[in-house]
């Protein structure tokens, strides 16, 4: 990766809303060129999406989230892909990963309006899939850090205003 690409990606990683003009101010790459670079990176799938991290606990109707771990049996010729494709299609499923280790194979995060919604979704839609041997659902009680962002604001250490 060249230095300019690294700069553009790091700036967007810190702030997905950074405009080509703002990126240009930090890199001296002309805005039109920045735009072109971003389009290329998007087309290549390097930039997947622009996400907003929201603290839902601060708004009126908080959602509930849960981790769900699955032990699955594999079908010949398909590996994990077929079951993964199927689970990915549910909009309730926010992320899905394949895990190493013996206990579980797949893990996903699910979002629902109530604990009951989530519990029934897992029982009705996931546990009933033929490949799924067993499930383990853990409701998330509090999020301390999300995608590198610490949710709870602490008082920062104040630097001296002037130093040599």
């Amino acid at each position, binding site marked *: 990766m060249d230095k300019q690409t690294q700069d553009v990606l790091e700036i967007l990683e810190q702030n997905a809303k950074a405009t080509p003009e703002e990126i240009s*101010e930090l890199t001296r790459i002309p805005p039109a060129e920045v735009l072109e670079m971003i389009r290329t990176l998007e087309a290549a799938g390097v930039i997947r999406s622009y996400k907003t991290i929201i603290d839902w606990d601060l708004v009126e109707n908080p959602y509930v989230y849960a981790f769900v771990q699955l032990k699955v049996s594999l079908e010949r010729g398909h590996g994990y892909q077929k079951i993964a494709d199927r689970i990915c299609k549910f909009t309730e499923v926010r992320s899905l990963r394949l895990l190493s280790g013996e206990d579980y194979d797949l893990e996903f995060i699910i979002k629902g309006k109530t604990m009951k919604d989530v519990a029934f979704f897992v029982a009705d839609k996931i546990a009933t899939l033929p490949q799924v041997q067993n499930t383990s659902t853990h409701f998330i009680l509090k999020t301390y850090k999300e995608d590198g962002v610490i949710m709870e604001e602490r008082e920062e250490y104040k630097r001296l205003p002037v130093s*040599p």
Partner: protein
Amino acid sequence: MTQIPKSTPRKVDQNTNGLDYSKYITHKMKTIPASGIRKYFDIAAGIEDVISLGVGEPDFVTPWHIREMCIHSLENGDTGYTSNYGLLELREEISKRYKRDYRLDYDPQKEILVTTGVSEALDISIRSITNPGDEIIVVQPTYVAYIPEIILSGGTPVIVKTCVENEFKVTPEELESKITPKTKAVVLNYPHNPTGAVMTRADYEKIAPIIEKHDLIVISDEVYECMTYDGAHTPFSDIDGMKERTILLNGFSKSYAMTGLRLGYILAPSELISAMMMIHQYCMLSAPITAQIGGIEALKNGEDEMKSMIREFNRRRVLIVDGFNRLGLDCFEPKGAFYTFPSIKSTGLTAEEFADKFFSDQHVITIPGTIFGESGAGHLRCAYATSKEDIKNALDRFEEFLKKL
């Protein structure tokens, strides 16, 4: 408008008990100038919306893995003295780093001394080589500690001026013109506080023959070494024939955001290290063990995070330099450290007038270049060790202020 005090007389403690303390304090102490940045420190207190471009330390916190290692060491009960030279493992890591990055060989047993920050390293290096009357050359604009340290050691500071036209580099002609039979050493400081200037290998190669011809020692304060943005840093000791004559100072404060942990080191020929060790063992004994353990972790596992911090500094550098130039405040392109040194000559104000008025009007702290000596006249030192948002906001306030002039 915030009121700024007119001058900064050194504060003398009020005599409350009948003793005349001034008679106990050495004559030398009375010749040490007060640090000119002190007043900005005082006036900023209690004002809410202050943006400070006056800070000489990174705004990043020490990376967590380093802090975690320090905490672990405390839990483990590692709270004793270390070898006077510093933990051997730390010296070995420092030695490896210089070997890897610069192919320079420093023997961890004899040629490396770990100090309590580069400030101590500077103090003991100057003290160990200065006889009364020895002349020590410093480059102006000058980091605030060099001249007082030389005076306290009984030496005479001699100034070599640099200017923006030469990108604040020391030229061989200027340097040689200041050398007398009494000259003992030259203090270099590149990347440079306060201008952000750097000296390249080719620049150093021009002054090395003069150092050799006049049989001088160089104290090279390279604490901003990692913050070199265009091209690679050259340690002064990497110049042919200079390793034998160089006392190289470096530390962890800037590169690993460890200012308050106070950890520095000296690389030098073993005879000089032994001499500095004599002072160090009596005045400091050893650098704090917690910081030393953090330093080992920093050198072993800290490079990725350090480099990411430096890429962020580089982007802010572009933002602020281009910002000043757009506002008509000519700004020399700094290639190292985290300082800019824009010229405010076009406003007709002196650096101190500008800094004072600007603070009163817009609550932005900048440091007048004259604090670093006469050759800083007409310039401000503005650090970009602050967030991009603050830099943008400060630039807006500069614009606002300039409109009113």
